[in-house]
């Protein structure tokens, strides 16, 4: 088990290192001068020169990479060009929101998808199955952005049940939760559509197997067989997809946070790219990569928990 963990951790670090090189090169080679973005087009060349020196942009490329990556290893992500505050602080103040959004969206996705997938599989070739398939088709086709606007128009503008966006802060948990409802639903509906289909087809495969017939023959109720015997065996492909979807959800927050004007990491990365805030973008891309790799790491552990046959391989 320890060897397994060690191998996976090394893999994780190697991936992050590769990501760091790529994002550094891309950000520093892309056209666009952070100094001009900050000072504007009416600024004088001497003011620009002073700022360029202050931001350390005159050093050679390799030096800048090494200084940066050494800082990251210590936990120092540098100081943002545009905000003028430590990047680590910027990330820390926004991370809880984005993570909450991503986790709650994933949770909602899983709950919805399992319920719909099991329902569809157990009503195979009947109206229920057909209904879920059509709904999920719609869900996959609909872009999250557009769906968000519709949800806002209905629930915020028309019904005034929920706020159209913004985040009131964590000090009032009820208001905070209300502010996250629509973004979570917008993210989850689209992902749930995909996952429901995967669940359904995986369930159908397991339903065909002999042991299902046996379980039913021994007199267990349909519902018990579905949930206690068929579903656990159908979960491996579902868990794989959830792992991939977590990555989609995390990057999906970039769009959703802009539509709902939430102060999260997604909004920050959008702003930082426009502002050519090199250090912030680099740190955020690394952060997103780290979240995705960690999620897949967790998925790997989950496999072992779900499928006892795999436990033996690790020992």
């Amino acid at each position, binding site marked *: 088990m320890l060897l397994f963990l060690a191998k996976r951790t090394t893999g994780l670090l190697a991936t992050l290192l590769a990501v760091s090189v790529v994002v550094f090169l891309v950000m520093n080679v892309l056209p666009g001068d952070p100094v001009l*973005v900050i000072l504007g087009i009416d600024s004088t060349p001497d003011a620009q020169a002073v700022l360029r020196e202050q931001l350390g942009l005159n050093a050679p490329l390799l030096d800048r990479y090494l200084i940066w990556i050494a800082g990251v290893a210590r936990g120092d992500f540098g100081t943002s060009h545009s905000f003028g505050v430590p990047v680590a602080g910027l990330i820390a103040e926004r991370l809880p929101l984005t993570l909450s959004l991503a986790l709650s969206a994933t949770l909602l996705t899983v709950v919805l998808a399992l319920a719909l997938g099991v329902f569809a599989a157990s009503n195979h070739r009947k109206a229920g199955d057909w209904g879920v398939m059509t709904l999920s088709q719609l869900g996959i086709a609909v872009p999250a952005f557009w769906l968000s606007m519709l949800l806002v128009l209905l629930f915020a503008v028309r019904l005034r049940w929920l706020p159209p966006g913004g985040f009131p802060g964590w000090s009032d948990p009820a208001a905070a939760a209300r502010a996250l409802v629509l973004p979570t639903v917008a993210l989850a509906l689209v992902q749930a559509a995909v996952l429901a289909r995967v669940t359904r087809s995986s369930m159908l495969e397991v339903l065909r197997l002999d042991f299902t017939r046996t379980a039913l023959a021994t007199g267990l109720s349909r519902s018990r067989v579905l949930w206690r015997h068929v579903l656990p065996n159908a979960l491996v492909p579902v868990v794989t997809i959830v792992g991939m979807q977590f990555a989609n959800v995390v990057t999906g927050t970039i769009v959703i946070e802009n539509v709902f004007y939430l102060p999260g990491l997604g909004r920050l990365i959008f702003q930082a790219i426009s502002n050519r805030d090199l250090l912030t973008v680099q740190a955020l891309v690394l952060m997103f990569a780290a979240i995705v790799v960690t999620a897949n790491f967790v998925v790997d552990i989950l496999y072992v928990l779900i499928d006892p046959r795999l436990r033996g391989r690790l020992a």
Partner: protein
Amino acid sequence: MTRSTAIAGSMLGALLLTAFPAWSKTAIVIGMQQEPTSLDPTSDATASIDGMLAHNVFEALTSVTEQGEVVPELARSWTVSDDGLTYTFDLQQGVTFHDGSAFDAADVKFTFDRAMGAGSVNPSKSIFEPIAAVTVIDAATVELKLSRPDAFLLFNLAQGDASIVAPESVELAKTTPVGTGPFRFDGWTRGDRLTLAKYPAHRDAAAVQMEKVTFQFIADPASASAALLSETLDAYPGFPAPEMMAQFEADPRFSVEIGSTEGEVIMAMNNAKAPFDDIRVRRAISHALDRKAIIDGAMYGQATPIGSFYPPHGKAYVDLTATYSHDVARAKELLKEAGVAEGTVMTLRVPPFPYATRSAEIIQAQLAEAGLDVKVENVEWGFWLEEIYKKLNYDMTIIAHTSPNDMGNFARGKSYFYGYDNPEFTALWDRIRTEADPEARDALLKQGQAFLATEAVHGFLFQLPKLGVVRKELSGFWKSSPVLFQPLAQVKWNG
């Protein structure tokens, strides 16, 4: 009902009516499109910093009215020497910064020295260029000595870049701005909102109705629209989407204000690159443009056409839109004369602003009629700054110039992204910026406009409108933006 009951009843009613004060709100939520990354207007050019903080949190020596007139602010009065080289400012007394420290002439000297110094990162350093020395005469008097006369000095000193700061608080200005204005900074949640609270010790505090101002940063027009309609926003003074104005005009809760700004939208041609160095080609392209179609298509009819580089609301404005009538035949003629073959390919690189991207498509079609094959390239802002602005790597582009009094751009020489250098115009601009008599200056400005139009330096398209959506009960918002700031001291809720 007996007579006495009726009298008692009506007296009670009257009492109740007068006893209830008119309910007045003292808080307002304003939507802003662009969130700044720093809150120091003296080291960052982002327009929204000025829009929120200039003349609200910070004050300057002078200020400007909605009509563009210079009025006193921290300088109570001033005198200018006959040669226009010495300005003596008499400062307000008893003013304090929000941290309690007192304001005096030393703070003014500090502000100017910092902006003009070698290590300065002031985005509008050029407005301080004519100032040779700043001297403190006494605690309430400051003298500015100029190296040359500057007609625009008093106007420029009202800009956010010339906000008066104090040495005690300037270090943290990027995150905690401290000024002398009627509102003090009360918190900033990055990505979300910025809050201001009334500063009770301000000299005009009694006239300020708002106790709390919240700026909510919403970039997406659809989200902004939803926020206004669901009444979580009270005003959005710089609404970015002209196509959505109709629904607010029809809604009885809102009033829509369409005003003017200092933003001239031009289709810039790279005057340093063939064939745009040939005046016939530039004139041909000017003839091929149909401003009305561009305004209708890109701005939904909500903009004023311009024929030169000066805002229509300005005092010295001359309507030169008829200089090059929409005449495709004449355009083809001129292109043939200049040796530009039919089907010549040109690129039109546009930054990601709706006014630019939408206009580009229309212009592409219009120039195609004249036989030019225009390729539209949508580029990102950082790319535009690097490739077009810095390296002059472009044929044509569309951009809005939002600074006031910026006709001097055409005197900045060949290295400026216009690629334009005409000694005659440079001499004219020198005369304009040193002319102290306003009437003479206006006459020169008219000459300047005519010059640029005749030279057809660029395709002058339209003046960027300011679209404001404001709740009907609110008053005090400026309709037009002669400058980048919006003073909030006079904003009130009515009934």
